[in-house]
């Protein structure tokens, strides 16, 4: 689809871009060993491969450590206000369908104050790439629990442990009619790069949750999926059309039970063909929803693309409607408009 964008864009021959071309001159101000660095690096690696001139790219963010991201990209960018990035990006995309727009947000920015815009941008399927840096904490405000922090999380604002249950970002997105839903991990650079690339190529709202380590206020919470020695036993790497197999020895798999719920089986007992085969193209989001419910430590946790289906985009449909009406009625004639209905002359 980016092809399309470039068609719509300038007709100059595309310059060959490198990651460096996407680096702005701004000093990066994240804490040492913050997961954000790795995500920034992968993003810079992926963008040059898309064949989109960088003046056609815009990074829009809210407020948070993660939301400083646009300042470090040498593209157009808007560092918005807290939680509103999806709405800012919707306005921009509606009026400028030729742009490729990335929304960078945090778990608090998108799911706490920004929850409503998150819901609506997804159900409208606006052609945006939303990358949520989930560190299960409010980093910028120095460590309060977020809507993704597990029950009992002790933070500055919950010294005795949080008592409100978190949301599962993927469940929320799927419940909001998402057409593209994926999850990856900051330091799993190959997987992250591949996932960002998939998002870039999706036409519609592509939602990617990235497990991001907040090294200062919430370190290590994603080690289960980040650490080389354990991740293969804890995570299932989803591949379209392939059976769900996992484990360092790839000796375990997933099957659906009579209630349609995923269950772990041993490949000793069950043969591959009887496993659940991943199908990201299912019209019905129910299976993707079921997979999103699999969370570590209760069960192995899927990573990768859960859902990727085609549906008209809101920006596309809205602009087509304008085009259609204009074609049908001809470009608006003001004088005709003013003279429509009852008029009279005064001599």
């Amino acid at each position, binding site marked *: 689809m980016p092809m399309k964008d470039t068609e719509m864009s*300038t007709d*100059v021959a595309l310059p060959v871009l490198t990651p460096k071309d996407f680096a*702005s*001159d*701004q000093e990066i101000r994240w804490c040492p060993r913050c997961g954000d660095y790795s995500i920034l690096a992968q993003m810079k690696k992926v963008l040059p491969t898309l064949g989109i*001139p*960088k*003046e*056609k790219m*815009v990074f*829009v963010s809210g*407020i948070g450590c993660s939301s400083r991201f*646009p*300042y470090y*990209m*040498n*593209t*157009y*960018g*808007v*560092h*918005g*206000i807290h939680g*509103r990035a999806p*709405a*800012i*990006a*919707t*306005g*921009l*995309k*509606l*009026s*400028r369908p*030729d*742009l490729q727009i990335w929304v960078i947000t945090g778990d608090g920015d998108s799911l706490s104050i920004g929850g*409503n*815009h998150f*819901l*609506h941008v997804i159900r409208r399927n606006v052609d945006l790439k939303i990358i949520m840096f989930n560190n299960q904490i409010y980093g910028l405000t120095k460590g309060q629990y977020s809507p993704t922090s597990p029950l009992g999380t002790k933070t500055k604002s919950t010294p005795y442990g949080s008592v409100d249950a978190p949301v599962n970002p993927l469940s929320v997105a799927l419940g909001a009619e998402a057409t593209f839903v994926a999850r990856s991990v900051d330091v799993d650079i190959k997987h992250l790069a591949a996932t960002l690339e998939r998002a870039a190529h999706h036409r519609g709202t592509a939602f990617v949750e990235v497990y991001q380590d907040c090294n200062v206020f919430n370190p290590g919470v994603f080690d289960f999926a980040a650490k080389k020695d354990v991740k293969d036993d804890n995570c299932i790497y989803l591949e379209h059309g392939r059976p769900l197999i996992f484990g360092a020895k790839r000796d375990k798999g997933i099957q659906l039970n009579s209630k349609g719920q995923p269950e772990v089986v041993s490949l000793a007992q069950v043969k591959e063909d009887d496993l659940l085969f991943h199908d990201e193209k299912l019209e019905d989001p129910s299976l993707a929803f079921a997979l999103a419910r699999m969370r570590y430590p209760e069960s192995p946790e899927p990573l990768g693309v859960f859902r990727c289906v085609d549906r008209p985009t809101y920006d596309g449909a*809205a*602009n087509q409607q*304008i085009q259609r*009406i*204009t074609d049908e*009625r*001809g*470009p*608006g004639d*003001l*004088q005709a*408009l*003013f*003279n429509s*209905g*009852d*008029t*009279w*002359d*005064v001599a």
Partner: protein
Amino acid sequence: MSDLGDTLTPSKESQELDSVVIRFCGDSGDGMQLVGTQFTNVSAAFGNDVSTLPDFPAEIRAPAGSLAGVSGYQLCFSNSDIYTPGDEVDTLVAMNPAALKTNVDDLKPGGTLIVNEDSFDLSDLTKAHYKSNPLDDGILSSRYRLQRVPMTRLTRDSVAGLGLSQKESDRCKNFFALGLVYWLYDRDPSPTLRYIEDKFRKSPAVLEANLRALRAGTNYGDSTEAFTVHYHVAPARLEPGKYRKITGNEALAWGMAAAAKLSGKRLFYAGYPITPASDILHELSSLKQYGVMTFQAEDEIAAITSVVGASFGGSLAVTASSGPGIALKSEGIGLGIMTELPMVIINVQRGGPSTGLPTKTEQSDLFMCYFGRNGDCPIPVIAAKSPSDCFHMIQQALKIAVDYMTPVFLLTDGYIANGAEPWRIPAIEDLEPIRAKHPLESNGNGDGYLPYLRDDRLVRPWAIPGTIGLEHRIGGLEKADVSGNVSYDSDNHQLMTDIRRKKVAGIAESLPLQEVEGPEEGDLLVVSWGGTYGAVRTAVQRSIREGKSVAHTHLQYLNPFPKNLQQIIQSYKKVLVPELNTGQLRFILRAHFLVDAIGFNKIKGKPFLVSELTQKINEVLSS
């Protein structure tokens, strides 16, 4: 239709009048807004000057016949120019008891009172909390020219045989009433006939029924003994040209479409429905072929922030709302001011505070628009003075926004938004396009694009995505002068705060000088703003005619003020500021000019009456 024509040749004595105020009132279901609009069209088309005041029931639809369900439409038509729908009603048409009860007090003693007596049955009387039938107790007939007309029955008779259900037949009785009043004021019904024929084309029976009902009403006036005379109001001497009727919200929508078309830019309009601003969205959403993109956002916060995005993308970006919705936009407007992007926020004011009185008019959001943001956060504020003025002012708002790269507040109110008046249709070539410049080359000779490098008016450039080499980032954190990078430097913050203030203050340089109606100095200056223009102007004109030393100045530009306002204000002994709020402009004038301005404040959800103003003016003069 010709035969219908004849019935209108006056077969009774006709009297000349200068101007007449009529009010149609009935149940929300009785179609009063429709007949009011029709009478307005007919009178306007005939060449009278017209001013209207629709009065809807509150947003919630009340049960038929209830007091809360009454809907009214008042209009004044005249042979000279007028600026208000009139204080007192000459002829009141009441379709049911509830309508009578809630409206009769506005009818002037000796005025004509036309009621549908068929609806004064027990059930409707009780719904209107009448213990007995007011038509019978002689009080009404002693005070007014009471005309009891069995409208329901006569309407049913007139449409009999068309195979309409009773419900359908009764729906025609508003046209019966209209026909009767047409006769009474000697109107040519042709526009209404055209309307009926066009509107009901699809159902011939209903079409015919409405025509018959209209005619039956006219015949009733002409034939019955009840009405002995009818009246004639000659055309007004308006500025020559082609005219049409327009409401404030229509004028806003058309003004935006015009701006988009003329400037060759896409108009991006984002709104979340709210009374009384919703119609702007409705109107615009049917103007897509004029380059209009409408976005019904999930809430007002999404509306204003999507406007920020669209403006960054290079569109003419506008959002509108009313009280509570504007409050929600505060933070987003602050972002617009920090990023210095052009956009217009329209506030169609309604009764407040909080949810307040959604369908009533008021001017009580001036403070919020002026001051309602965190930090030192100046914004230009302008206000329309009448329905047709909205067409001009929205274009002014967009012009200021684009010329100065700033959000702009445009204030109107429920009275202007729904009120209608004749509008002299402009020639397109007379309209001034909005000239937006988007740089194509870097201004940073060498070291990249500098989004906050300003011109001599302190205005920054509007570079938009897609432009090679001008990639830049903006946001809500304080910006470094010139480079626009994030800056926590103290001196820079002082500098930028001063720049933001000076830039907005500097807009005064491009504003028309403030004008005064009446003597250039004298005893009293009346200062008004917004929708009270018509009433205040009429009142002051009267005082002037009475030889009083009074002048009127009406503010369309509220921040910054026109350069000569101070000098004007100092030229009068006293300053009176009538407002439909507790004194907001007055407060601001006092702070700016240290003038001991006197307030005249009405917070009743209704416009000023000319009589109230005249009285206050006299009071102030003689005190």
